[in-house]
């Protein structure tokens, strides 16, 4: 395993059973993980003194329907370590029938809206999220607009006024 970036090496050592695949490209490494222990892995990546991924840059969903990749969905995390200058991308594949995984909001506060966006656009559920509600579409909206089988010509009007509450 010599020459492997430290993040990947440490992930293999500590969470060897969780790592499904590793994609290596200078400055743009990616690790595919099982969904089971995501919050533990996230906490480890944030707190380990040699890693210190303090920044969660982005969370997004991807729908692989047209690419015919199984399982259909994936959640992508982009992490950055200010201290060491490392970057890593975590990919968590999710099955269509059971698109759920644990939220990382307890680890990074900033995950909040990104997870809500992924929920809104793809219908991926984040267990333990403090306020998992639609963020970009309105409350009467049906379906998830960035799924590849969503009819993008469909118009959905918002007819009811909703009491705004402080979120």
């Amino acid at each position: 395993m010599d020459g492997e970036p430290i993040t990947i090496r440490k992930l293999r050592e500590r969470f060897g059973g969780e790592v499904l695949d590793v994609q290596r490209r200078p400055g743009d490494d990616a690790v595919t993980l099982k969904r089971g222990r995501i919050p533990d892995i996230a906490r480890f990546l944030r707190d380990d003194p040699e890693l210190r991924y303090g920044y969660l840059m982005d969370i997004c969903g991807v729908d692989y329907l047209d690419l015919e990749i199984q399982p259909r969905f994936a959640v992508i995390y982009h992490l950055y370590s200010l201290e060491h200058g490392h970057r890593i991308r975590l990919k968590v594949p999710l099955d269509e029938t059971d698109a759920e995984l644990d939220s990382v909001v307890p680890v990074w506060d900033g995950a909040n809206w990104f997870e809500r966006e992924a929920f809104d656009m793809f219908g991926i559920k984040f267990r333990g999220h403090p306020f998992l509600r639609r963020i970009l579409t309105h409350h009467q909206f049906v379906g998830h607009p960035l799924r590849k089988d969503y009819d993008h010509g469909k118009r959905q009007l918002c007819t009811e006024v909703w009491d705004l509450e402080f979120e």
Partner: protein
Amino acid sequence: MNNLGYCHAIEEWMGIDIPPRAQALRVFFNEMHRILDHCVCLGPGLVDLGALTNLWYLFNIRELGYELIENACGSRLTTSYLRVGGLTRDVPSDFYKKAKTFLKESPKNLTDVRRLIERNRIFVERTRDIGVVSKEDAMAWGYTGPCARASGINYDVRKVRPYSGYENYEFDVPLGDRGDAHDRYMVRIEEMVQSLRIMQQVLDNLPEGAASTDDPRAFIPPKHETYDNIEALMNHFKLIYEGIRVPKGDWYSFTEAANGELGFYCVSDGSGNPYRVKVRPPCFAICQSIEKIAVGHMIPGPDGDRRKLMNIIAGELDR
């Protein structure tokens, strides 16, 4: 500026080399847009504090910038000067004159604003220790750009991972230490000064040469070749009908936009249309923290003094 982020993402993945002149002009207009963006943040932000005059001074700068970009690409607000592979066209002949006017007039306006504001008691009292974001919080919330630097996080993509030849220019990255609205103001002002410095360096050493790559995968061949040469003609058709065919794969690319790290996560299926592009806008991460920071402050606080000095751009939230 956002164009640059996306073009950079595609070029980086395809390995397209950009000629030095195009790189330099990109940096020039990128920094100009950084200044224009900070003007819009500070101008209306100060109006909310009751300091109206600054808006006119700052929008003087903006008007000069609009003239410059209109001269280059034909539009003022919804500009699109960059293409994958370079620029749409080289700058016109009177670019130097206009650029020099910009570099001469902008500092004067900036100085006027600074003289009006920085020792103004109302301004200082309404921004100092208002909306404080600690370094740890800023990182946890995913702050980047001027708001993060005001909290003391030394992170600037232009320094950490230079693109478009930023490593060739000398500039400083200003940092704050309190993370309050006052620091966010000061960081933005200093960034404008540094941007002017970069623009001056570009103008002093602007290389000659082409303004776009001749890589056939990305750029439409010159008109005379399209008419005279069958390969060029076919290439032209292919690029127009199919678009730029980007190799399969997924990647993440990021640049320093005016408000922080602007990231593009792209998934390509090898065709001329992107399969999935996720934009990571800096303001989305910053905006979600306002709820927490606003607790315990008066309403004019979050809305005027603070929201504006954080520069939340609605277009970055819903994209």
